[in-house]
């Protein structure tokens, strides 16, 4: 739902790195986004296309890698992958304990970019 401010931040960081690396054109940006985020990939790309017009990042493709939602069991410390829907009913596959602590799935990172 909040793709616009997220996309503005992405572009700002991309342009900062482009400037510091004598980049003529950004071809692609690789992002890592946690599965717990509700971002829509299509919308991020659409906003990016609009916001990046006239910059070296115009036309760049956003490649989004979805990072799994992982919980750590509070009883036995085993880590297991889960899903956003039903997370609250999740059960540790190792010991059967319900729930746990979310250890990943909230990532919002720019990993790298392909440039010319």
């Amino acid at each position, binding site marked *: *739902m*909040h793709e*616009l*401010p*997220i996309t503005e*931040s*992405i572009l*700002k*960081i*991309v342009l900062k*790195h482009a400037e510091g*690396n004598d*980049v*003529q054109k950004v*071809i692609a940006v690789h*992002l890592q986004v946690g599965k*717990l*985020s*509700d971002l829509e990939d299509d919308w991020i790309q659409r906003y990016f296309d609009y916001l990046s017009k006239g910059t070296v990042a115009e036309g760049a493709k956003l490649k989004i890698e979805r990072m799994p939602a992982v919980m750590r069991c*509070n009883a036995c410390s085993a880590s297991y992958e889960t899903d*956003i*829907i*039903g*997370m*609250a*009913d*999740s059960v540790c596959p190792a010991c059967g304990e*319900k*729930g*746990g*602590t*979310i250890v990943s799935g*909230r990532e*919002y*990172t*720019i*990993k*790298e*970019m*392909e*440039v*010319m």
Partner: protein
Amino acid sequence: MEEVRLIEVKEEILSDNIKQAGEVRDRLRKTKTMLLNLMSSPGSGKTSLILRTIEGLGGDLRLGVIEADIESTVDAEKVAARGIRAIQLRTGGFCHLDAGMVTRGIDAMDVSEFDLVIIENVGNLVCPAEFDTGAHKNVMILSVPEGDDKPLKYPLMFSVCDLLLVNKTDYLSLSDFDMAALRKRVLALNPRIMILEVSCKTGAGIESWIGWLKAEVTAFKGAI
């Protein structure tokens, strides 16, 4: 043709917001003002809770309110009518508040005059959970008519809060809301969360909420 190169970035997309949120927290620690971020769906009772809080505190704490709404000043007017300093932030279509917007809110009030500032976030169980506002405590409301299955749909919100207020308990007898199932689901996501049952309509449970609030402000000031 020029070759394609790979540049390593490894940067947090939300790094600006994370930094600004830290600055808000530090700034308010200096004036000993606790900032509380109140989140919920639209219509679950955020404004009603704030009005009950004004009444329940009865002047024991110096309270300020930052209201966020997409496009209206209705809530701020209700709060200001009770003699409480209220700042209205119009988010202009944004679905959440971020630390930058909160900074503008606290810039508009003299925060040193307050022991506690409550931010009424935009009504939404999704986006506000992802943006650190700079608050010291996060509180959410879930109202009985919304159903006990909400932790299944919005796990992030339940996992980032320090306190859950289950509001509109006066509806319990009319609904099939399962309080035990709700507690189990919420605690599975967030074992350190505190859960209180209230009714802003009848006033039931409000005393416990006021007690929690006073204890948290005392602990906050004591830790500085």
